């Protein structure tokens, strides 16, 4: 009983959680890992843009908004792509990976047309 309790308490330590996370994540397909990298990239860029706005100022406001919409939009679209091509979600029966990627590209095209139009 005590052994079980100590094992479960060991599992709940921060290091154990991180270790467990990386162990599970190592089984994730390479495609999803690359998408995750891209998501981190867009997220960090969005955070830096927002930090600039908070620390320095919003001028020129339309440029700030364009950049922020671009990062947030990209993040949302990439997340959708990730959900669609994740084998766990079983989307492959209805939507192929190629179809999901094509949709992603088209949505990005429209998003960036709007962004550049708003950029001024």
């Amino acid at each position, binding site marked *: 009983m005590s052994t079980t309790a100590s094992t479960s308490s060991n599992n709940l330590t921060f290091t154990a959680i991180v270790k467990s996370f990386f162990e599970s994540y190592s089984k994730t397909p390479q495609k999803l890992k690359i998408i995750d*990298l891209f998501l*981190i990239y867009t997220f960090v860029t969005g955070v830096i843009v927002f930090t600039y706005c908070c620390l320095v*100022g919003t*001028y020129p406001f339309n440029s700030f908004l364009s950049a922020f919409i671009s990062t947030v939009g990209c993040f949302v679209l990439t997340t959708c792509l990730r959900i669609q091509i994740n084998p766990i979600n079983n989307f492959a029966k209805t939507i192929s990976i*190629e179809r999901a990627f094509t949709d992603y590209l088209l949505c990005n095209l429209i998003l960036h047309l709007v962004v550049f139009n708003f950029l001024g």
Partner: protein
Amino acid sequence: MKLIILIVLSILISIVISGAAQSKITTTRGISNVYSKNDVNNIKQFISSKYNANTKLYGESLKDTFYGVGVLTRIGETVESSKDICKQTKEQLKQNKNTDIELVFNGVSILSELKCLQGESLGNEQQLQELLKNKLESGSLLEKTQAINIYFTLSTAKAIDSKTVSAIDPLLQQAVSSIVSLMDEDGTFKSVGSDDEGNLQNTAAAYFALARLSHRLKSNEVDKLVAKVVNKVDTVIASADETTDSLHFNDLSTTSSLLHGLLSLASVNDKVSETIGNKQINQISEYLLKQKNVESLSDAYHLIVGLKRCQKNSISQPISLSLVKSIYSPSGLNDIRVSVTDIFGQPIESSVLVNKVVSSKSPRSTPILSGKEMKFQPSDNTFAIDVSNENLKLGSYNFEFKVQPVDTENFKSITNTQIITVTGAVTVNDMKLSYAPKADQLGSQKSTSEVQFGQKLSLVEIPSNNVARIFFRIASEGQPYQAQQVGIRFHSPAREAVVPATFSADAYSYTFTNKDVCKILGCQSGNYQLDLIIGDQSITPLQWNFGEINLKFNQTTVPTNRYPEQLPISHNFRQAEKRPPQSVSSLFTILVLSPIAIFVFGLLFVGTNLGRFPTGMGFIYTMAFIGCIASTGLLIANYWLQSTMDVTLKNLALLMIPLIFFGHKSMSYYSNLSSSNIKKD
């Protein structure tokens, strides 16, 4: 009822008869301008400036030289270096070996004008004969007419041998028939039979050639053919552009050539003069005189040819009546002179009558003078009349002159109206300024101030409840004079107004009350200067400061500007937003770009599977797809930098075609690859 019909009919007949009679007796007013000696000198200088000492020709070709020499000989000027020109022309004819008809025509015409052709043969007689024969038999209309002109010019100068004469002479009759056969239904001539329609340049050339042929051949058959052409002359003339003053066909060269042709035709057939008469010649002359400023040798030639044909022709020669001067002082009215000349300013022997003289202000009033003959002054070839006894006041007068030429065969009488202005100075008499409580008391001596012309009244104070009057007379040479504009100007540093004076019974006056001037001067009390202003085209304008008055108004002063004075507008612009220092911006630019490093390093850690990059057609589709996506990115970036949404969307639509195609191909390839891998597994 029958009586009424008879009366109406008789009225109609009388109107028709009187109309016809009037049209028969109508005289023209002549031409308004002449081609003066100055114009002749100008054109001479223009032609001389075109002489090229190196080529020994005028302009650039033999054709230009033909025009240049043609002008100089027609205005009676000697052609400098005529020997050189003859030599050069002969050389060019020799080189050409009589093969180009236009060159031969120009060359022969130049040699003829410069009198270098007398008894001399052009050489290559056989070739010349062949050329003339060939063109007369099967050439275009212009080539036929050029061949005829060459043949006649050479024959007149005896520069052609008897063999050529005997070969060409029989072809002339046939040439007449072939030229007439080229006439279109509207009277114009086609170049060749297969042409759809004729033109006026061809028509002019045909008329001139037919006239020459008719003179030469003197046969009934030719006369009949010429008569057939003459029957259509009215249709050709109807195609002219006509205004009240002038008449022309297309351009200067067409007008001049057609006039030349028509007048030549008139010399062999009298019926032409029924269609083109005195009026048309005067209208064409007016058109030609408007084209004085020539810019090319061709225009100069056609202008002079046209003017010379107007000056000497068998139908009617234009006359010009002009005033020696149009402005006279009252003391100069004893010698009003006019000159009567032809189109080149040469005096014409004639008698001149002053039909009537009326004031320009009332042209329908009783004539001041009528039916007085002018005396010829041989010293300057002018006609003079003395009207000093007619008591003409300052102003403008319409003088109607009737010119009756001695040579009635060549010249027609004309009736011409000229405006003569009698001008001089005026004086102002009886200038009075009076004021009184009532208008009927204004004549009293007590309140009247008088001033001599040129002097000034001392300040007059006009009580606010009084009526005032300014009275004066204007005179010229002791006679009352009514000027076109007479006004009185009230002015002070703050206000100014001009009021018209009323003319009545040889005198002017302006009566005003305090209320009247309050209205025009904005009720501004104070001292006002008084000026008398007289304006008229016949006199020197006059402005005389004749007095000063003091006016007092009980009403509130009206501001000079109807709008209240406003402060100047200052524009406040929004303050520009405070920008961060350059270093902060640069730092954040690096920071924004830095996450890409996370992505790149992450890729190194996660790894990429480039080994699965397709080969063969799959590689081509994939690369093309990536290229299209990159192009789309560049297009959007270009839109941001410089382009417009309209252009961008059009280009994007075009780019979408390969993008969709390669995208589909590439994705199909990957899809097939995945399916086959699954099957294998």
